[in-house]
């Protein structure tokens, strides 16, 4: 018998007992539906996080700070002369002053000398007093820590140009109304005034061009994103009046490492930095909790879906055993007429695969339909604060994996009944009443 005939026959055999096949298919639909939906949610959230990653930093950079030996909630900390001796107090206006120990040039040199560190850059921290547009009300604004390679999701305009000579800034969209812009497009190209306090205590201002407006994000920084020229200009203003000879200090340092060397190498590097008295945090560490929670939820839901599929595959076994029983004489006749046992096996296992295919395709289609409805409903309500988040994403590879996986499970379920049919002795099948 030709393979095409086997498939055609298996198809029509599957529909001989429509109710029985329909119920078995329904069980598979439920499993495939759940599996597609949970995977879709996982993919939706993962891709959102991935697209937000660029907004926080780059994956071959870790942020290094001095480890502060202080136990939360255990009362006043004892004075440690060494701690002071080893650090220079941060200048006024540096973020974290008083709560964090700054890094000096010596620290940067020490970091650069550490094995596994490719490059070190001190994060020159600038604290703004306010941002103002067109002499309107001033608002507080924080500058995001700047790491080359970072990108934010934009509502309008462009990313800042790192190499531009002119100062540029990307504002969070939450500032649009406050600063008196009609919409995001209106803000792009306009000039805003930034104010800060220098080392002498005088308030100074600087002007900068708004090149883009950032969408609010789940994780991405809430501050404005400056370009290098702006940071340098503001930093220069901030240091006016600082005692000459006082070393430049940094709130933190960005340390580049070889991300391709693998997780173990990264962990080893972090351990070495910890031993030296630094705290090193990679992007993965920052995201780790969120992603691991999401992964776990998706895994648990997938587990339920797979339990449903296992139950459904028992339905397939049952359905096919009944079919084999019903068609005992037919199988006997076909074998008497020279159909090989292998073809008999194929007839029944393809029938199982057909049932699996039907159930998984219907389940996936239902999931896509429901996913679309739920996604758009949520996007307009609960998730409207997070544009760019599509809750349920159906990746072709995942969908294909679900369909093929269910077909494979169905095939496995079909082997038992198919083997029984294949082993049937034609004579006793023909004698079967």
């Amino acid at each position, binding site marked *: *018998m*030709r393979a095409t*005939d086997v498939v055609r*026959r298996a198809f029509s055999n599957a529909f*001989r007992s429509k109710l029985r096949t329909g119920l078995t298919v329904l069980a598979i639909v439920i499993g495939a539906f759940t599996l597609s939906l949970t995977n879709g949610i996982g993919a939706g959230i993962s891709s959102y996080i991935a697209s937000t990653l660029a907004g926080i930093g780059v994956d071959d950079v870790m942020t290094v700070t001095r480890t502060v030996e202080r136990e939360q909630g255990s009362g006043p900390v004892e004075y440690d002369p060494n701690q002071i001796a080893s650090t220079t107090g941060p200048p006024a206006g540096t973020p974290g002053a008083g709560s964090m120990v700054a890094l000096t040039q010596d620290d940067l040199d020490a970091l650069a000398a550490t094995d596994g560190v490719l490059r070190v850059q001190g994060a020159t921290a600038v604290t703004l007093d306010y941002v103002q547009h067109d002499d309107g009300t001033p608002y507080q604004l924080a500058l995001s820590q700047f790491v080359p390679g970072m990108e934010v999701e934009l509502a309008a305009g462009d990313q800042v140009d790192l190499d531009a000579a002119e100062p540029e800034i990307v504002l969070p969209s939450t500032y649009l109304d406050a600063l008196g812009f009609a919409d995001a497009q209106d803000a792009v190209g306009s000039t805003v005034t930034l104010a800060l306090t220098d080392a002498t205590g005088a308030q100074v201002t600087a002007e900068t061009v708004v090149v883009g407006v950032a969408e609010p994000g789940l994780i991405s920084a809430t501050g404005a994103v400056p370009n290098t020229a702006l940071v340098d200009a503001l930093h220069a203003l901030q240091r006016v009046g600082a005692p000459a000879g006082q070393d430049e200090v940094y709130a933190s340092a960005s340390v580049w490492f070889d991300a391709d060397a693998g997780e173990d190498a990264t962990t080893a590097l972090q351990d070495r930095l910890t031993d030296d008295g630094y705290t090193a945090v990679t992007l993965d560490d920052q995201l780790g909790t969120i992603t691991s929670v999401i992964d776990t939820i998706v895994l648990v839901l997938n587990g339920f879906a797979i339990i449903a599929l296992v139950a459904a595959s028992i339905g397939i076994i049952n359905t096919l055993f009944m079919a084999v029983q019903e068609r005992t*004489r*037919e199988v*006997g*006749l*076909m*074998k*008497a*007429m*020279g*159909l*090989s*046992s292998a*073809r008999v096996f194929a007839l029944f296992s393809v029938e199982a695969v057909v049932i699996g295919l039907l159930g998984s395709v219907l389940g996936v289609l239902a999931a896509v339909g429901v996913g679309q409805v739920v996604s758009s409903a949520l996007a307009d309500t609960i998730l409207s604060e997070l544009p760019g988040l599509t809750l349920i994403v159906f990746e072709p590879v995942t969908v294909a994996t679900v369909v093929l996986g269910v077909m494979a499970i169905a095939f496995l379920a079909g082997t038992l009944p198919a083997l029984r049919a294949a082993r049937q*002795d*034609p*004579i006793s099948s*023909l004698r079967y009443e």
Partner: protein
Amino acid sequence: MTSTPLISVRDLRKTYGSGSTAFDALRGIDLDIAEGESLAIVGKSGSGKSTLMHLLALLDRPTSGTITLEGEETSRLGEKSLNRTRNQKFGFVFQQFFLTPSASVLDNVTLPLAIAGVPARERARRGMAALDQLGIADKAGNKANDLSGGQKQRVVISRALINQPRVIFADEPTGNLDSATGSTVEGILFDLNRRHGITLVVVTHDEDLAARCDRSVFVRDGLIVPRHDEEVAA
């Protein structure tokens, strides 16, 4: 008999079961079937007729003894060549019809061709020709279930001859039919035998049917016996 027989059987034995439940259904059969002849296998119920026919048709393996088909000893054949032999050289008519009720008459008739891997178009052409030969071409599209008993048996015979077999094995071909329809079906079988030279092996209780065959053998308790013995026993 001048030429070598089509099927030759020597000291054929078949034992069902083992130990205390063992039952010797055939106890040493010698039989030659010539090409083109019609042979009736007659005997009482339970005498071993069907068992003998199944062995002759290579549907089952004997416990001991040899079956030679066209000079070839069949015990050496593997499953694959046994399947091919049955598919291409034999046609089957059983007492029950063994039609797939939900499938069309044409699909039922062309089943042996589908098994042989003949393309669908040629299957349909040959199927229609076979149905035509038995005068039921107009039923080709009907469901097999919707036919009368006599029509079903014609479908079964069409199916048996569609692959242009050398031998048609018929087990009680008329047992399920009224005597008028039965004799029509008999007529069709003997016509195939005479006009197309298809060898006919018929298992039957029916003395009249046996009498229409070229030759009859009588089976009793797993042995072939002379006719008068059978009559004495009956």
